[in-house]
């Protein structure tokens, strides 16, 4: 039986904020919204271990929005930093130097650059050591902080600063995203989930659910990025929601390795609806429509959901290509 969640509607979004306004991130940043919602569930006693990335500039010395604690590490080493903090806390508690009530939740926060590329090795190490921590990756699908260069989370067809659409490479990026969820799952942590702030209740429930496990709790949150993706900042929720409703961003979790999709669109919307709204995909529509690339993206989405529907036993209406 599923435990009852505290979160059933948007009205249940906790009303305490552990972030002050006034940070330096872009207006409308989906990554910041993910951090804010995540923090609401975990409460005040948190130490964030932040790998280099957009969230770094949340803090603009000496001004900091966080009302909790923050340790800034190099790109590759946030999970190692988390291990150090976790160990120190455990020892202090064991020796009676701090009461258990002052224990902190250790949370790594990174962008996809650190999570998929530069910090994958140290993350793998931390999961392997069964470190008791949370890992939140806000996935804006490129190196947003340095000007939107390609990362191994960048989807096929996206143009980035380093994979622009050119006459010889008209699709922009041609590499497929790494499947970080499955890479993590192969390490057998107790809890993994994907998130999108646009499905905020699903988001809150998953953070709450993960809290019930000791060991690595891993989250990949889609992060709408007005600057890099190229849309009006007001559309962040719409973009993230379209990503879910077109099936491009599946919302799922794996409890002790067992995967379950938590939001299943009964009928997928065509990926085109999502792609067309973002500047990073504009070369797929003008001057000529790149039907081949759009179809490839749609086919990938369809075959993903076909497989899932089979395994989890539900019906889903795919988009004809």
């Amino acid at each position: 039986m599923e435990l009852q969640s505290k979160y059933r509607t948007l009205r249940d979004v906790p009303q305490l904020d552990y972030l002050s306004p006034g940070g330096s991130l872009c207006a409308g940043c989906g990554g910041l919204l993910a951090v804010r919602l995540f923090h609401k569930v975990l409460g005040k006693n948190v130490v964030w271990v932040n790998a280099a990335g957009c969230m770094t500039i949340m803090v603009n010395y000496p001004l900091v929005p966080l009302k909790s604690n923050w340790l800034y590490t190099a790109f590759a080493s946030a999970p190692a930093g988390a291990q150090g903090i976790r160990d120190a806390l455990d020892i202090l508690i064991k020796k009676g130097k701090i009461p258990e009530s002052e224990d902190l939740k250790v949370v790594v926060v990174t962008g996809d650059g650190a999570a998929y590329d530069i910090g994958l090795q140290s993350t793998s190490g931390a999961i392997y050591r069964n470190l008791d921590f949370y890992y939140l990756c806000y996935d804006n699908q490129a190196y947003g902080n340095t000007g939107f260069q390609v990362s191994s989370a960048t989807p096929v067809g996206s143009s980035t600063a380093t994979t622009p659409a050119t006459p010889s490479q008209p699709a922009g990026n041609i590499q497929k995203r790494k499947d970080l969820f499955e890479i993590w799952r192969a390490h057998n942590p107790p809890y993994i989930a994907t998130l999108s702030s646009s499905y905020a209740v699903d988001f809150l429930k998953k953070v709450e659910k993960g809290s019930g496990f000791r060991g690595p709790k891993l989250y990949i949150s889609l992060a709408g990025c007005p600057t890099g993706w190229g849309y009006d900042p007001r559309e962040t929720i719409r973009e993230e929601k379209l990503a879910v409703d077109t099936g491009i961003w599946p919302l799922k979790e794996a409890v002790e390795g067992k995967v379950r999709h938590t939001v299943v669109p009964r009928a997928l919307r065509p990926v085109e609806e999502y792609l067309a709204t973002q500047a990073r995909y504009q070369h797929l529509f003008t001057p000529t429509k790149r039907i081949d690339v759009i179809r490839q993206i749609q086919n990938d989405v369809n075959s993903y959901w076909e497989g899932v529907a089979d395994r989890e036993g539900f019906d889903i209406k795919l988009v004809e290509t």
Partner: protein
Amino acid sequence: MIIRVRFHGRGGQGAKTASRILGTSCFIEGLNVQDSPVYGAERRGAPVTAFTRISDEQILERGYVFDPDLIVVMDPTLLDSPAARVTDGIRKKGVIFLNSPSVTHITKQNIASDFRLVNFDLTNAAMEMLGKPIISSASAAAAARLIGMVKESSLEQAIETELEEIGLSEETIEKNVLLGRKVFSSLEPVELMTEESSRELKIAPLELILEGNGLEDITAAGNSSVSRTGSWRIFKPVVDYEKCTACTVCYAYCPESALTLRQDGKPVIDYDNCKGCLICYRECPPKAITLEREVVAF
């Protein structure tokens, strides 16, 4: 003779591109030019500065423009942003161009008395032409017209060249050309009384930058609210409490924590720090949030 122009905009408004278009249009006229932007660590919406130097001789000067002949203020709310320091170093009889429907609020500012002021509502023109408050071409057109050394055809060519380079569609470029033309023909050149640099480097005391408030204690958690990122806004979301159903959707989705809920569940917006992303406006189910153009510096 060097003309020094300084653009002050916000990330996303097109200050950098404006300085490039101005530079290129002067280059087409056969002048020597230089242009460069500076960004801080902050992001879209944060103050951005860009410089253009124009001369009929070789330009040996480098770096920031500290003593501009012309300042282009792309967003009037920047006037009161201590971080942006918009009016710093304006020359005697220098010109400040203000993107604003009116000039009244600048007189409240305590700046050197004998600058000259020109204003035009670029944002409105851009909204009409492009449907977006992006004013790179419009600002460049205003500057090009004011300095009086650029023909309309050179400006058009510069807009095309620069916007093509950043990969905009033909249609968007065409609209930008029209916008540039409109602004160009709406203004008159001003006589710039440029003189050689009389630069006096001053290091501003910290309390000046922070308006005498001093810094928050570094150990104070959540002290970022003193930074008043509310000055990043171009549009201001305003709640109509009659229509608001207290559904709390806006609260859930505000990335900035700039909304709090009253006892009755209706939102209160912290205008000191709401960046004006307008997610709340877009998501409010009964459309209880409306927009106001932000023109008055607070």
